[in-house]
């Protein structure tokens, strides 16, 4: 009886220990899952809407769980303070300018806080830091966008249906291309023409290549213009001189212009000799009469000179002149023959 009660006590002891061990395993597993026994720092963020985020929800950084939500509390209208436990072991990877956004582990999963970004040059986050937040993830917003996309897709497919119907019926440019054989021939011709054009362009480009090659050859004018500094200096001197000449010409033209103007003024004035000659008819008639008298006088003088040639006083002089003339002509002809 005594041994029976003793073994019973042992069994109860084992049973109790095993039961407590199971409970301890549960607690430890839960603790490791919840990071209860890991040392952590507390940081916070402010959101306008946390979409059902709860205490104990996870915090991810680059897809790895680095902490849990400590508390979620409304501090003023449209401002929710979220305090977060971040594992100290993860602290060295998270920098001051890291940003937080509300996300979800799957389309219908729990809400999480996702940390992302951060510049490695900046120091790591510390206890009590405030993490900047970004636009919230919202299932409603996502569904709204998806709905809008669906509407757009419906519109696109409807338009495509209309377009394909018209193509099948031979309407529009594409429809004609697909159905009109003459258009196809024309397109073929066009393609052939384009092909020829391409060949010509190829030739042109080859010629242009040759030309540029020649231009690049040293000693040519174009190459000298580009590369020879003395040619350019000469051109610059020449230009300078041309400019000086141009200035002088301008002065000359101006002077001529002035002269012309004064001449015109003189011509218009009948009191000046030229004006009188051009404008005064009476003077013109007098001049005409003088010229007629001069003509008559000249003719009479010619007659008198002819008469003088016959005079014995002057005959000898005229014969001497004739001989001198003759000798000059003979010397000229001798020179021509000798050449």
């Amino acid at each position, binding site marked *: 009886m005594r041994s029976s009660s003793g073994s019973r006590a042992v069994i109860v002891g084992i049973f109790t220990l095993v*039961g407590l061990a199971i409970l301890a395993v549960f607690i430890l*597993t*839960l603790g490791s899952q919840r990071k209860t026994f890991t040392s952590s720092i507390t940081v916070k963020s402010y959101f306008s809407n946390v979409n059902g985020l709860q205490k104990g929800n996870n915090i991810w950084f680059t897809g790895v769980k680095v902490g849990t939500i400590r508390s979620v509390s409304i501090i003023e209208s449209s401002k929710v303070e979220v305090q977060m436990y971040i594992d100290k072991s993860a602290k060295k990877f998270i920098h001051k300018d890291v940003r937080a956004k509300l996300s979800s582990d799957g389309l219908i999963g729990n809400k999480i806080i996702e940390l992302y970004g951060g510049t490695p040059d900046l120091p790591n986050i510390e206890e009590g830091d405030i993490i900047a937040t970004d636009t919230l993830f919202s299932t409603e917003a996502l569904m709204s966008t998806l709905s809008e996309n669906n509407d757009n897709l419906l519109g696109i497919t409807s338009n495509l249906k209309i377009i394909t119907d018209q193509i099948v019926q031979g309407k529009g440019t594409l429809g004609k291309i697909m159905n009109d054989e003459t258009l196809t021939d024309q397109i073929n011709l066009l393609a052939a023409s384009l092909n020829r054009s391409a060949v010509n362009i190829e030739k042109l480009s080859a010629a242009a290549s040759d030309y540029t090659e020649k231009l690049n050859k040293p000693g040519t004018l174009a190459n000298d213009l580009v590369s020879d500094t003395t040619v350019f200096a000469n051109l610059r001197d020449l230009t300078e001189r041309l400019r000086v000449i141009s200035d002088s010409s301008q002065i000359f033209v101006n002077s001529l212009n002035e002269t012309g103007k004064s001449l015109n003024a003189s011509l218009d004035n009948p009191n000046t000799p030229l004006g009188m000659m051009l404008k005064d008819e009476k003077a013109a008639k007098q001049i005409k009469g003088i010229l007629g008298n001069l003509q008559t006088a000249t003719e009479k003088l010619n007659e008198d000179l002819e008469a003088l040639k016959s005079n014995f006083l002057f005959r000898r002089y005229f014969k001497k002149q004739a001989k001198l003339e003759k000798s000059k002509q003979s010397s000229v002809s001798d020179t021509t023959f000798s050449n």
Partner: protein
Amino acid sequence: MSSNSAPKYLISRKVDTFFSDITAASEFTLRFFKEVFRPPYEFRELIKQCYQVGYKSLFMIALTGFITGIVITKQSRPSLSEFGAESWLPSLSGIAVIRTLAPLVTALICGGKVGSNIGAELGSMKVTEQIDAMEVSAINPYKFLVVTRVLATTIMIPLLVCFAGLVGMLGAYLNVHVFEQTSMTTFFIAAFDKISYLDLVSSLVKSIVYGFTIGMVGCYKGFNASNGTEGVGRAANAAVVLSMFLIFTEEILLVQITNYLR
């Protein structure tokens, strides 16, 4: 003549009996808290009762927990498959087993097995006047019979719940592994991902309350058995029915309190 003129019952016989039973049960329960801290302590009887309640129920609890784990997973799979959420099966099984199924199933099984045992044992001792004989022998029957049994159920049922939780999770894992080829590590990480300390604590508190209830109801019904062997059967039956009813009532209340704290 004067005694005949006085009313026999305050309201009616049934109602008066009901309220007087509540008073008696309350006194019986309060007496436990008085006796439990008062020496002498019946350790040997306590260990015997722990052996009876805990070890002797282990196989049945483990089997029931294992089946429960498999069943909850099997029943949940079609619903989750409809929207491609089979990956939620571990967390769903974890929540179901730890939060509710392990404490409730253990309590119901123990309520049936242990509660009826205690009721029948104490009832037969009552009708055969063994309890009266103990009183005559200067042995406190309440301390020897009731305190040890209630303590045994209060201590052992939480431990049984731990076993049931573990075995239930293993059953769920087996089912998930067979159908989804999920590894044990992945399964348990996912299962515990959605469980909080509050779930674990509330589950333990519930099992302590259920254990206390089962022991107390069994002892009370057995201690107050009457009318010979028929009374023994009635006491055993009443112990099971009342303890189960109280377990469900307490479940509702404790779930409400847990949700309030959550």
